[in-house]
């Protein structure tokens, strides 16, 4: 299975969304004990970025970094996520430690992890609109949002 996945010269895996979860499962079996990092990148302006042959560039990318304690090595997986349907399968069942990381990616980048047990915002207030780390979200300040601004005096 691992051999079917497109691999760059530096050893990064570029699975399709269908291959993604299975690939992570295979990698876990081959000795990558823990998932050190999971984050999302918004390539709004860079559809022409350097990707290995065969990989189709999409707007979002989910980047997973795995670590093997036994072999002292790292592996990186980059999966392309289209803007029209920003969702990928969750890794929670392989690495429970990705729970908070996936929630963070959902909160800040708006990528939905299907099958995640608790897909809620983690850093922003619950009723916040938009996903701040997207490139089309302005960085500038917003007024204080009181939910039901009341003062007891």
């Amino acid at each position, binding site marked *: 299975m691992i051999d079917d996945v497109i691999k760059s010269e530096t050893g990064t895996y570029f699975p399709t969304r269908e291959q993604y979860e299975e690939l992570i499962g295979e990698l876990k079996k081959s000795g990558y004990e*823990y998932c050190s990092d999971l984050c999302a990148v918004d390539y709004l302006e860079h559809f022409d*970025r350097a990707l290995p042959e065969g990989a189709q560039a999409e707007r979002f990318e989910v980047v997973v970094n795995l670590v093997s304690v036994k072999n*002292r090595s790292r592996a990186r997986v980059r999966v392309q996520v289209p803007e029209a349907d920003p969702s990928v399968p969750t890794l929670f069942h392989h690495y*429970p430690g990705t729970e908070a990381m996936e929630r963070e990616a959902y909160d800040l980048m708006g990528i939905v992890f299907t099958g995640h*047990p*608790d897909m809620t915002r983690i850093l922003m207030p619950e009723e916040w609109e938009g996903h701040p780390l997207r490139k089309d979200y302005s*960085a500038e300040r917003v007024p204080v949002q009181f939910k*039901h601004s*009341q003062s007891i005096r």
Partner: protein
Amino acid sequence: MADEENKQSEAEEEFSEETFEGPQEMSERSTTSLAEMTVEEGAVLRIAEGVVVDADDIDIEIAEDETMIINMGPQHPSTHGVLRLMMELQGETVLRTKPVIGYLHTGMEKTGEGLSYIQGSTNVTRMDYLSPLHNELVFSLATEDLLGIEIPERATWIRMLMAELNRISSHLMWMATNGMDLGSTSMMIFGFRDREMVLSFFEKVTGLRMNHNYIRPGGVAADLPDGWEDDVLAIAQTIPRRLDEYNDMLTGQPIFRERTEGVGILTQEQALALSATGPVLRSTGVAWDLRKHMPYLAYDQVEFDVVVGSVGDTFDRYAVRLAELRESVRIVTQILDKMPSGPYRVLDKKVTPPPRKRIDESMEALIHHFKLFTEGVKVPPGETYVAIESPRGELGCYMVSDGSSKPYRMHIRGPSFVNLQSLPVMMRGGLVADAVAIISSVDPVMGEVDR
């Protein structure tokens, strides 16, 4: 009159809703889905291949009507900042715990996209405010990796010296706050006293007690001041004596041991599955220290031991940190002997500004200086993930460059953010009074959790 009362009760109700965070909070057990239970019980960890466990299998017997959800934080003296925990209690036993975070979310990753690589370390240094130099270090290493430059030997060793001293100050701070949480006020005063010694050295070198912006892409901001050896030697000689004091005060003390031994146990499998790193992982017996096992800087040229625990309880996490302090002192002593001479930053005019003196003499230097601070360094396109061992665990930086002078995406993998996930597992089945000890033993720094 009745209307008025009505109005007031409505107002009060709305007032309490102000700080309500909806589904981010813990839901009632009657409405909890099976999937959510697996998170909060940590049930997934105990079975292979992540098969979802049946809620009936969970070994604590729960009477539906006798549990109570209590809220702790975000403004609570022992949550180390603005951590908020929701705990479901049965009597005094904690059944479920859910951390609600984000109360210190600063949008640093977004801000980082608007700052050039030279300005960037000013931003990242404010993430983990107890070990600011490690944040600067990981940012600088990632930038240098993308630039493909080698930094001079002296810069490497200065970075190492500062990073280890920062580890000492961070662990001392942990000793202080942990002591305070467990009721040892003297430990609090002692820890802060000894930390001041390291901080005054930092102030001498960098100009600031915290948030130094000292380690920058291309080297360090300034050379060490004259006489730095004496200060470092004084620290290296004093700290071990003080550690003996702590040892006498806490390690053998019955109250301290009662409150920490066997409390909040985490197993190796759980720690790895939850991606816990640093002292939390090492306390369970996994010898995994990036300094040793994936060396960066010049850690392969100094001698030190990786300290591991055996049980994975709160006491082990304390003992690991106490021993790590000694190892850090050992490294610092070796750095004193081995500090090479030479430039303290890359002499490439495109990366680091020219010395102040050259600007007065040379037009070219002035232009370089101007270009560097207005335009910044152009970094070739690419992506990289660099990780170092911060006092709390694996501190990673995933950086994407698109060829401009600002990072296109800068993501920091904060060790406290990930370690915090192990709290529900550690707390489960314990007493509510132990919650404080367990939170403290994970050493979360909220600035890094929320970024």
